[in-house]
């Protein structure tokens, strides 16, 4: 088993490939392309496409294909969460202190903020004024899938790509699944369960890791406040992108719609409530340590 890890997108990337050795050129390509993606789409990089419309007037603008793909998914999630999930949330996060310099100490009690309106058609973005995008909620899943495709193209089909805790896993060389422990929200060395991944994506989210003063990074665009209804959630789906979209829906969508989300995104899920009880979809395949 060959493992490689590196930092990018503000988190730790860890790849496991079921071979003796991954050629150096491929390692280099993986790191290079991942950093390129970070540079192009991170809101923490001033020159990124995410920041391109920070001072723009209302209008229609051309955007790159990857951004269009991500925004199209985000647009749909915005619709099915009734506006609660909005990747235009970046300026609110900045006002709350989670800006490019991590000015956490300036965190106000509450923020008066109006969600920007934006839409995507083809590779054209239409906005109603300045907007900054935070694609963190779905972008890692998107890139995880891209890395998996890259490895398979290089004849390395048996792998697990972990992008800061979200992941996609094919199969081990012997056909067996990858065994993944699910971190207990808020308890670093504890697991709440285990799941076996076999050509599946997994996304995990919690309110603890990116938390400052009375804020955490999961902010509802409709209320302008961080979520309180759950401590964390997890989802499995055929791709990491879909799993990532599912956790975003769980964090921000209406519970009555959870079933519809599972159908749309072909996902199963798990939610930890504030009292540490779990809400688990019927098709959840993992073991739970209750």
């Amino acid at each position, binding site marked *: 088993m060959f493992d490689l890890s590196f930092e990018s997108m503000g988190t730790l990337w860890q790849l496991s490939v079921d071979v003796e050795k991954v050629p150096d050129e491929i390692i280099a390509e993986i790191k290079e392309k991942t950093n390129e993606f970070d540079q192009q789409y991170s809101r923490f990089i001033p020159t990124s496409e995410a920041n391109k419309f920070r001072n723009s007037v209302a209008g229609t603008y051309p955007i790159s294909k990857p951004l269009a793909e991500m925004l199209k998914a985000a647009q749909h999630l915005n619709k099915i969460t009734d506006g609660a999930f909005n990747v235009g949330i970046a300026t609110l996060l900045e006002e709350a202190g989670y800006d490019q310099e991590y000015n956490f100490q300036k965190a106000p009690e509450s923020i008066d903020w109006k969600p920007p309106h934006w839409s995507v058609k083809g590779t054209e973005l239409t906005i109603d004024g300045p907007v900054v995008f935070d694609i963190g909620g779905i972008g890692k899943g998107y890139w995880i899938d891209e890395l998996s495709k890259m490895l398979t193209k290089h004849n390395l089909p048996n792998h697990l790509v972990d*992008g800061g805790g979200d992941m996609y896993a094919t199969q081990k060389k012997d056909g067996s699944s990858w*065994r993944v422990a699910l971190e207990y929200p808020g308890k670093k060395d504890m697991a709440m369960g285990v799941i076996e991944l076999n050509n599946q994506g997994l996304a995990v989210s919690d309110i603890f890791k990116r938390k400052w003063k009375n804020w955490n990074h999961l902010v509802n665009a409709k209320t302008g406040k961080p979520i309180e209804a759950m401590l964390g959630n997890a989802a499995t789906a055929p791709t990491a992108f879909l799993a990532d979209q599912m956790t975003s829906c769980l964090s921000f969508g209406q519970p009555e719609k959870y079933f519809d989300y599972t159908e749309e995104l072909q996902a199963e899920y798990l939610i930890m409530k504030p009292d540490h009880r779990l809400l688990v979809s019927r098709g959840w395949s993992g073991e739970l*340590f209750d």
Partner: protein
Amino acid sequence: MPKSTSLLLSAVIVSSLLLAACSPQAPAESTETTLPTSAPEMTPAPTESSMVAPAGKEVTVKTKYQSPAAMEDVGFTLVIDEDGLITDAKTEVLTTQEISKVRQTKFAEELPAAVVGKKLSELTKIDRVGGSSLTTGAFNKALEELKAQI
């Protein structure tokens, strides 16, 4: 049956009985009524004297109501005896609709107890740990600075 449906049914019965009382010549009568989607207000029931209907009278009413799936057509057939009492009632679903996909999988399972969890170090054969994304250098440093200030 749910409360709103029974209220609806009562309203339908009341209105159909009133109609029946109004036209004694006609035999089993059909009327179509479209009721509002919210449960209508209960109007006071007419007194017994205005409600005498011929014995063994059958009254059929077709109406619509809003179900979670759609506007449903439903029929009620009531048999009323000479004292105006309903002796039999039948409902007929007049449109077939796949009402709601209440599959077993629709409802997520809520576990009854708080999760105890296990120590990661106690787990065997784990390939990876999945969790909310790890934060790195700059983020952690800023958090430390914040904590130092508080």
